[in-house]
């Protein structure tokens, strides 16, 4: 548990943190602009600029403004949301292995989406994101209500979450095995976490909740620092730990559920981004949360761009690439971090 308990930031490391945030922000912007330039149809930079700023000369309105731009916006929103959600859950459950997965959000969302598509094929697929969101909330609500009601410790909460996750996961596997519907593609692609076919309509329904929830998460970051001190200490300084835990988990759940609804299951971001952030700026959540959000944005935008560039006109799901590229980096970070903690 020591992974999330660090000394408060000293002024010097605070400056370092701000510089790091600035550098990351620049990287995110660069990656986002790059993602506008890659895809199945090569478009010259000049045309992209013309289209973005509505200048004279050749424009590619649909591809830039209606295809790549909404995808970029969604990648940024979902990347930040998943990273924040993961960071909060890791801090609340006080377990570095935690991620939105651990309270069943992803499997709950996946199961509900699949049930909608495979069991009720008559219901239009536009409702799939809503079903996913509800599924994530149902799974997480169950875990939280049980844990809160019985006043369980963090580790019990995590274990119940894992168990609930397995139940939903089994449901997903069951549906996949009994149906051979590999042909109707939407749910399968969605399960791997993809931005294929996303439009402004998806941005319209998700940007407000994601922005508001992300802001709330950043505002609540100091409470994470208190909880990180340990349940007894936090209670000792007057924090109602169970209530704060519930509130924070609720924010984390909503963040993850809404992102899962719009970009599908991208489980790895919520685990990886907070750890990368912690490695970069330490455990103080006031600094770690914004850094994690930026790292999450960077990862998803890059994964989506690379997925489009790798084998056009076929797109590789961003979720697959995020894991494929991120995992080795993640392992490297873990190897170096562990040795530091041991000393």
């Amino acid at each position, binding site marked *: 548990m020591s992974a999330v308990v660090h000394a408060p930031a000293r002024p010097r490391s605070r400056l370092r943190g701000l510089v790091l945030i600035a550098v990351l922000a620049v990287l995110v912007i660069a990656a986002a602009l790059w993602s506008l330039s890659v*895809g*199945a*149809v090569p478009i010259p930079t000049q045309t992209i600029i013309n289209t973005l700023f509505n200048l004279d000369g050749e424009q*590619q309105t*649909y*591809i830039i403004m*209606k*295809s*790549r731009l909404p995808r970029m916006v969604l990648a940024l929103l979902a990347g930040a949301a998943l990273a924040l959600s993961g960071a909060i859950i890791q801090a609340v459950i006080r377990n570095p292995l935690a991620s939105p997965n651990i309270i069943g959000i992803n499997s709950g969302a996946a199961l509900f989406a699949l049930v909608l598509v495979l069991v009720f*094929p008559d219901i*239009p*697929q*536009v409702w*799939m994101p809503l079903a996913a969101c509800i599924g994530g909330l149902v799974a997480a609500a169950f875990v939280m209500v049980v844990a809160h009601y019985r006043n369980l410790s963090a580790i019990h909460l995590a274990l119940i979450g894992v168990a609930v996750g397995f139940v939903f996961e089994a449901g997903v596997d069951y549906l996949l095995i009994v*149906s*051979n*519907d590999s*042909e*109707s*593609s*939407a749910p399968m*692609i969605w399960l791997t976490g993809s931005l*294929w*076919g*996303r*439009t402004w*309509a998806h941005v319209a329904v998700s940007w407000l909740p994601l922005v508001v929830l992300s802001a709330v998460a950043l505002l609540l970051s100091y409470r994470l620092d208190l909880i990180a001190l340990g349940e007894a200490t936090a209670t000792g300084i007057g924090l109602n730990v169970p209530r704060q835990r519930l509130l924070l988990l609720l924010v984390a759940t909503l963040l993850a559920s809404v992102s899962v609804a719009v970009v599908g299951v991208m489980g790895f971001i919520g685990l990886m981004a907070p750890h990368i952030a912690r490695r970069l700026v330490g455990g103080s959540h006031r600094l770690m949360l914004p850094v994690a959000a930026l790292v999450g944005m960077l990862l998803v935008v890059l994964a989506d761009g690379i997925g*489009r560039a790798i084998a*056009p*006109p*076929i*797109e590789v799901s961003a979720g697959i690439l995020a894991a494929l590229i991120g995992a080795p980096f993640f392992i490297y970070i873990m190897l170096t971090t562990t040795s530091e903690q041991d000393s």
Partner: protein
Amino acid sequence: MFNRTILATLAGVIMLAVAPLAQAVEIKHDLGTTEVPDEPKRIVVLEYSFVDSLAAVGVAPVGIADDDTRESIVPAYTAVIGDDWKSVGTRKSPSLEVIASLQPDLIIADTSRHEAIYGALSEIAPTIAFDSLTGTYQVALEAAKTIAHAVGKDAEMEARLAEHTTKMEGFKAAIGDVSAWSAQFIVDNGEGIFLHSPVSYNGSLLSWFGFKNNMTTPDGHTYEEAIVKTSLEQLSEINPQVIIRGKYADPGLTDSWVGQPLYDNVEAVKTGNLFDVNAHEWSRLRGVIASEVSGANLVEIVKNLKK
């Protein structure tokens, strides 16, 4: 006087109402009603059966979801539509960017495959959708008619369908009375076998020619009800007298079953009435032209039936 003013106003209103219709044709399809510009010139199709429908009336699409395999558009089609079309990727997840870059004025999509991206497709161009994946032979012919209407080729399609009926009736006559025979089309992809049920395209085509089908007819029209993944036990239970097999892998899974009593005792296997056909042409291609190819295959198969 007064009446005349009313009449003139009415005429004006009617002309105003009719004027836009002259520029576009309203097409009712599985995912709604869509205004398609008069005689669209740049058409993108996202299923093979729509290539079939366009080829039947001599229209060449500019983009095809060909699963990134140009050969999947068989010579019977390219002979009509040529080679000037661009691949827009897979049928499962076609590239919206490539579709947009072709600046289409009509997109023809599959109801179940592309429902989730119907909104995105409609932003690019008017999009009409038909049930190609799980529809029957009759559904495919209806879709072909509607597609011909959408591209302003009603007369051509009428003529082509008349020719089609003559051809198919000819095949039917050559095949003769097969009502005593149960026939089953199966796909073997090396890992599993998939039976095309009575509600599937191939199932309905075999029924049209008069074959029996030993499978129970499902109520609905979902993919699982049309294309049924089947075990050896289930196949032996269904026990068809004729098996028409499309193999995507060689050796197929069924080949590995040779020697197993359960398989060897399936009626069609025992009597030697198992026939191989082109898996791609049978299981993926649908429509006016494709069904004529299947019909010709069936005539050959029936000639070789061991009674």
